[in-house]
């Protein structure tokens, strides 16, 4: 009976109910999109790193695993690494952030092709002139680029020479020496990729490099890829915690206002229930069940909206902020939203439960 009353109460005021559900839905969607975005970007980085074909990565001392900038590593280490026992190939690369999350990567293309098997060109081909640039299909789609299109980056006009399949190294690639020269980083690199003779050599070579280059960040590729996680990105975990906190506050405020209004609107109905002998707990129970139901429906709406947000992101900005659907976060987001909503119902519920039945019955 009480569930019927709860459902009928929500149905009786459809606009308020829909707005509450939508507000909680947007809250859940924000949460899922932020997490999906973080995970999507990390997954994208992982995929591109694993497409390189290297076995070991060497990064300079003090660098972060997922650093996008700086070229503090001397190029001389490439030749040194290549000369070490059981090392088949070493390739240096340089990352240069140009705007927001967009990074241009410079690489020695012939050496990289030997290591990875080369890019798969969907159209066009590798750079042939000093201002030729290669972009992946996501970046091309997002920026409406084709082979021969002009692209202005780093105050330089580039010509798109080729569009590559995504998932290998980077979205925007130029020859290493061109990028070094443009950024005044001649002889400098961000990292070095190393390929060993055979898989069994990975651990011995890793141990040797760590011994010879103390303080350097040296990882096997498997280890390097596994480090693309939320906890290894500086500030990301804190950022997600802040978003969760904001979601709880939003859920709290939405339901607080909604339930506060509902209690005022339904003063007389609460008086009727009290005249019939409903206890304060009975009244609270009704309001909490209503809030819970709105929270559940809002969470379901939010999960649906997260598909919509992903669709919009992947349609309009697939290269900048790749995002994924995160089903393992659905219960967390729902619990966050419902928890915030229930907290928002506490004060209105308390007010309703404490209402004087005579005053409530005379409320117009």
């Amino acid at each position: 009976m009480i569930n019927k009353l709860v459902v009928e109460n929500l149905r009786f005021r459809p606009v308020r109910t829909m707005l509450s559900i939508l507000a909680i839905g947007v809250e859940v969607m924000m949460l899922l999109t932020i997490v999906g975005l973080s995970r999507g970007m990390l997954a994208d980085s992982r995929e591109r790193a694993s497409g390189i074909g290297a076995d070991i990565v060497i990064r300079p001392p003090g660098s972060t695993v997922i650093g996008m900038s700086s070229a503090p590593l001397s190029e001389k280490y490439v030749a040194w690494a290549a000369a070490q026992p059981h090392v088949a190939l070493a390739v240096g690369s340089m990352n240069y952030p140009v705007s927001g999350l967009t990074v241009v990567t410079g690489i020695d293309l012939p050496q990289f092709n030997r290591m990875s098997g080369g890019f798969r060109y969907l159209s066009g081909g590798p750079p042939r002139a000093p201002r030729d640039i290669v972009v992946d299909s996501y970046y091309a789609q997002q920026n409406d680029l084709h082979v021969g299109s002009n692209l202005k980056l780093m105050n330089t006009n580039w010509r798109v020479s080729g569009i590559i399949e995504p998932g290998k190294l980077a979205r925007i690639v130029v020859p290493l020496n061109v990028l070094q020269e443009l950024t005044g980083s001649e002889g400098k690199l961000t990292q070095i990729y190393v390929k060993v003779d055979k898989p069994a050599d990975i651990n011995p070579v890793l141990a040797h490099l760590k011994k010879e280059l103390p303080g350097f960040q040296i990882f096997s590729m498997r280890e390097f890829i596994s480090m693309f996680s939320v906890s290894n990105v500086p500030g990301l975990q804190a950022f997600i915690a802040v978003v969760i906190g904001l979601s709880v506050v939003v859920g709290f405020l939405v339901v607080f206002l909604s339930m506060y209004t509902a209690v005022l609107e339904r003063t007389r109905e609460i008086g009727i229930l009290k005249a019939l002998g409903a206890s304060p707990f009975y009244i609270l129970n009704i309001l909490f069940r209503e809030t819970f139901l709105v929270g559940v429906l809002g969470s379901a709406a939010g999960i649906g909206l997260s598909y919509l947000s992903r669709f919009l992101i992947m349609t309009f900005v697939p290269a900048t902020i790749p995002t994924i659907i995160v089903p393992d976060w659905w219960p967390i987001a729902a619990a966050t939203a419902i928890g915030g909503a229930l907290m928002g119902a506490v004060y209105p519920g308390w007010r309703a439960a404490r209402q004087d039945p005579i005053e409530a019955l005379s409320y117009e």
Partner: protein
Amino acid sequence: MSNAPIIEARDVRKIYRVGDVDVHALRGVDLSVRRGEFLTLVGPSGSGKSTLFHILGGLTAPTSGHVLVDGRDLSRISDAERTELRKRMVGFVFQKYNLLPTLSAADNIAIARHIARWNGERDEQFERALELLGIADRLHHKPRELSGGEQQRVAIARAIVNHPAILLADEPTGNLDSANSQAVLAIIRDLNERLGQTILMITHDAAVAAYGHRIVRMLDGRICSE
């Protein structure tokens, strides 16, 4: 009708605080109502009849004095006990019907049972009462789909569904036209005569008051004549 009183009020006083002023709503009311009696309470606005109604219904406590309903002293019970009392001992019928707008007529009745934790067994007496009320074919309608007379009949059904010791009706025909008023009053009288329901009804209208066995008049917080 039994001679045993079901309601006994002795020197009941109620003082409300309105701003900085004490309002003496009841100034020493003595009243006795026998089981099965149909008593009407008449008096002008401000005479204290609604306050007495609220005290007898367990909606508020008296400031002083004793009120015994079916042997329980309402002046000495807690709010929680007062809530319990309203579940089964008292049934209310209000001038404005006071049905829950979100529920059907049947559910308005059912929720009173749910609140009183009725165990769901078949209730022949209530079924007879529903027949008297003549609303069997309107039970699945929401209050807004019912006429005033039908809404008041549903409210009466809700008030008696838990077989209260007393039925308190506050101006039950105040919002009805004369035909519906007569029908509702006839039903209330039938409930009293056929089912032995004790009824205390408040009214302004002398013609309505005449439906009761006994008329009690109130003025300025006191009973002035019986």
